[in-house]
């Protein structure tokens, strides 16, 4: 083992299952990690990257996996070398959390909900160090301060559910680093976080890494994050390493076709500079399930005509009750006085971070949550009163595609039935015709007719999202609300689904309300963009002008926080924000002020005042 190395994997084989059902998740993986170095393992779901990480921790066996062969050589704190792969489980436990620590993707569920933050960190410390609980509490407090948690002493006493996702991930990092490990394994640590929070967490990991001269194995599917953090990159594909190299080489001249395809599929913020219409992703030749991209862009949007959907003063509030009789004292102003226009055949991208009200906006339009609006026009009709038949019409002509393709299809119904159900519900077709149409729709979204008789579990995430899209198309909608519809998909699949959406838009003249947190994806697909913050739109306009000339400070912050998949554009001096985002909760009788919008360019509007009580922003 080379002296500079902390970790060396050699010929690692990991499998799951037994006999005929054996699945080789990782095949002869070799890699090395030097002291203080960050190695990114990149790949899509199922590539074996997380399994490799879990096997370094010797956690893989708790999930039913086995290390079949190979070595995991690790240099301990005292300089001795050991082979983790063949280590006795009790010995491995002593190293776990002590000399090798790990943080996970899901900060919301990775902390035990029933114990306080302080207890959980203290537990990690007293397990591995000869410290009293009081000494351990001191260390825990110090760690919480080092991960920039404001008011750390208070946070020690809180329970996980009282903290936001970003704060919880900081707590996880504090816990992982509390025993000063030689090696930190970070498994998609920022995937579930907002971009601005992600930027802070990445910076934090980098700073702590330098302070403790620690090595980091960073597992991610996000090439933007790789470019931001990695010294070296290992690309995995179907359980095998297909490429390895320093980060600049891999990005500049990838050698393996898979790496090339992966890099091509990555949405690139700024890639659309100088164009105004959306454009499909360049998908390389072997697109087995993607239909051909539309040859010609759809007809230009007629912005002087009447919008397809026009909403004014859309407001959704959730009451918070307190006291003996549940008197309402506060409200969450999830959506406040929102105005929205969508023209036929257009894609409006609605972006913002979690909690900004973008998903609630989509649900409010179809009254999936209690909401009100001062004006609602759809397809030339005034539906403000929203009678039962109005709502029925609205729900037929506007359809939803949700984020989670696994949860949004009923596992006990065939795909064909799921697709025909909305048609039956709205009385559009009889059973036989509905099924025929379902088959036809499956073909339209790039699947096959005989898939109609199968159940959802037989399909991958991307295929399921195609099925959800087919279901949405069944009632001949004019508008589809896509709520984070591609966020849960791997990049290459994401690119295919976005291309499919564009293709369908061109063929059926659909309009989309595309709700997303991902600026680069929104840039790709949108004609116009609306940026949402604290329940209101702070900036809206044609995509080209908003992305090329963002006027609102919040829009700028979102754009600068998005990781750039180019290691040469790495930003290292980003300010580290420690606080929590302002909250949309207001006491009763004190609603937030409605933003006044100024026109700063053709159809480009910016909020005069930043909401949340910040100083006035002057548009240039």
């Amino acid at each position, binding site marked *: 083992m080379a002296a500079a190395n902390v970790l060396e994997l050699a010929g690692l084989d990991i499998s799951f299952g037994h006999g005929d059902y054996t699945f080789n998740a990782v095949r002869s993986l070799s890699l090395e990690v030097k002291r203080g170095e960050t190695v990114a393992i990149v790949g899509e779901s199922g590539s074996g990257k997380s399994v490799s990480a879990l096997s370094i921790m010797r956690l893989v066996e*708790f999930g039913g996996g086995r290390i079949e062969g190979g070595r995991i050589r690790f240099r301990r704190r005292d300089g001795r070398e050991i082979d983790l792969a063949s280590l006795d489980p009790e010995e491995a436990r002593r190293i776990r959390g002590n000399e090798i*620590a790990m943080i*996970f993707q899901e900060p919301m*569920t990775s902390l*035990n*909900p029933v114990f306080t933050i302080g207890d959980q960190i203290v537990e990690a410390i007293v*397990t591995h160090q000869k410290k009293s609980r009081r000494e351990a509490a001191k260390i825990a407090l110090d760690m919480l301060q080092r991960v920039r948690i404001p008011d750390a002493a208070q946070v020690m006493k809180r329970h996980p559910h009282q903290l936001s996702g970003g704060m919880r991930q900081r707590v996880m990092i504090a816990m992982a680093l509390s025993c000063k490990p030689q090696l930190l394994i970070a498994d998609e640590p920022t995937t579930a976080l907002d971009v601005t929070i992600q930027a802070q967490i990445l910076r934090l990991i980098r700073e702590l890494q330098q302070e403790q001269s620690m090595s980091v194995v960073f597992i991610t599917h996000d090439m933007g994050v790789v470019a931001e953090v990695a010294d070296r990159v290992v690309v995995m594909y179907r359980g095998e390493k297909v490429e390895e190299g320093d980060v600049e080489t891999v990005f500049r001249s990838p050698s393996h076709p898979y790496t090339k395809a992966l890099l091509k599929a990555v949405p690139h913020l700024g890639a659309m500079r100088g164009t105004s219409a959306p454009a499909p992703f360049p998908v390389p030749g072997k697109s087995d399930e993607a239909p051909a991209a539309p040859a010609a862009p759809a007809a230009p949007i007629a912005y002087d005509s009447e919008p397809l959907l026009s909403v004014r003063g859309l407001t959704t509030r959730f009451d918070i009750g307190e006291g003996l009789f549940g008197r309402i004292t506060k409200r969450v102003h999830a959506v406040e006085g929102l105005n929205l226009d969508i023209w036929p055949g257009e894609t409006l991208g609605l972006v913002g971070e979690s909690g900004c009200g973008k998903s609630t906006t989509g649900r409010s339009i179809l009254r999936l949550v209690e909401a009100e609006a001062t004006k609602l026009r759809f397809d030339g009709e005034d539906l403000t009163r929203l009678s039962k038949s109005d709502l029925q019409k609205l729900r037929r002509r506007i359809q939803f595609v949700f984020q989670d393709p696994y949860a949004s299809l009923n596992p006990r119904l065939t795909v064909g039935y799921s697709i025909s159900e909305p048609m039956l519900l709205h009385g559009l077709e009889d059973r036989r015709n509905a099924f025929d149409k379902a088959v036809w729709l499956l073909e339209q979204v790039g699947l096959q007719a005989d898939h109609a008789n199968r159940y959802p579990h037989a399909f991958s995430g991307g295929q399921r999202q195609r099925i959800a899209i087919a279901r949405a198309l069944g009632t001949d909608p004019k508008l589809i609300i896509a709520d984070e519809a591609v966020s849960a998909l791997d990049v290459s699949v994401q690119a295919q689904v976005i291309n499919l959406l564009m293709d369908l838009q061109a063929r059926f003249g659909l309009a989309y309300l595309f709700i997303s947190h991902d600026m680069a994806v929104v840039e790709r697909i949108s004609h116009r963009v609306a940026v949402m913050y604290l329940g209101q739109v702070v900036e809206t306009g044609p995509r080209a002008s908003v992305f090329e000339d963002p006027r609102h400070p919040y829009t700028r912050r979102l754009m600068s926080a998005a990781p750039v998949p180019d290691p040469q554009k790495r930003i290292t001096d980003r300010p580290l924000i420690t606080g929590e985002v302002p909250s949309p909760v207001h006491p009763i009788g004190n609603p937030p002020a409605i933003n006044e919008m100024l026109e700063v360019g053709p159809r480009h509007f910016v909020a005069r005042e930043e909401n949340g009580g910040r100083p006035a922003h002057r548009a240039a």
Partner: protein
Amino acid sequence: MLHYFLRRLAALVPVLFLISIFVFLFIHALPGDPARLLAGEAATQEEVESVRKALKLDRPLLTQYVDFLKNLATGDLGTSLRTGEPVSAMIARAFMPTFWLSVCALAWSLLFGLVAGVISAVRRGSPGDHAGMFLSVSGISMPNFWLGLLLMQFFSVNLGWVGTSGFDEPSDLILPSITLGAGVAAVMARFTRSAVIDVAREDFIRTARAKGLREKVVIWKHALRNALIPVVTMAGLQFGFLLGGSIVVEKVFRWPGLGSLLLDAINFRDYAVVQAEIMLFSLQFLLINLAVDMLYGFINPAIRYK
């Protein structure tokens, strides 16, 4: 938290009111005439009527119900139609034997169920797990009067270790509480097992292991505490049933408790006793449910009520 508790407590009043209506109507809808039963088979119709009058059962149902409610509100449970004794005294006498029986049964079955459930969950799929779950199915399916008789035959008659029936000394509790708790222990074991298996899949269990905690701590501290919510729910329901539902076991062991009292009262159409007991069972059930709900908040701070 206190507010929530008081609100829930206040909400019990209308529920109890509804229950009182149902109880009253049900019992009067039962076939059988207490006046006839009391007057005896040989009594003439006139004698029966005079008994009815003496018991104030000749008045309209509504009047009787209002009386019942009035008395209930002042804490007066009425007098037994059969013995003329105040119902409250009869219940007070029968309450403690049943209480002890239920508590003993619940205590051992909870402890056993929890431990067996966790061990089964940890050794999922092992022969031990299969054996445990086989026992558990047996426990659920075995009628408790049969188990009671078997135990009695073996330990009291053959070995003579404990008495066969009645409640005279603490050791008399052993057989009836084993009999009563067997089904509960089996249910708790199954419930705990599946709750622990569910929790073991959670991300925070992986975190606990990633910290390097000993497997014992991971399971008995991190997993079990989270698995307790469904387990406590089930335990509360079972306890409610135990308090009210030990009729069969009490009969088998001739236990001087509420179950025996209720059975006799129903046989004699002793309206006042039946009504009072069912109201008591309902109140117990509601209070236990409330206690369980409050317990959730202590187990899992994320569901602490306002």
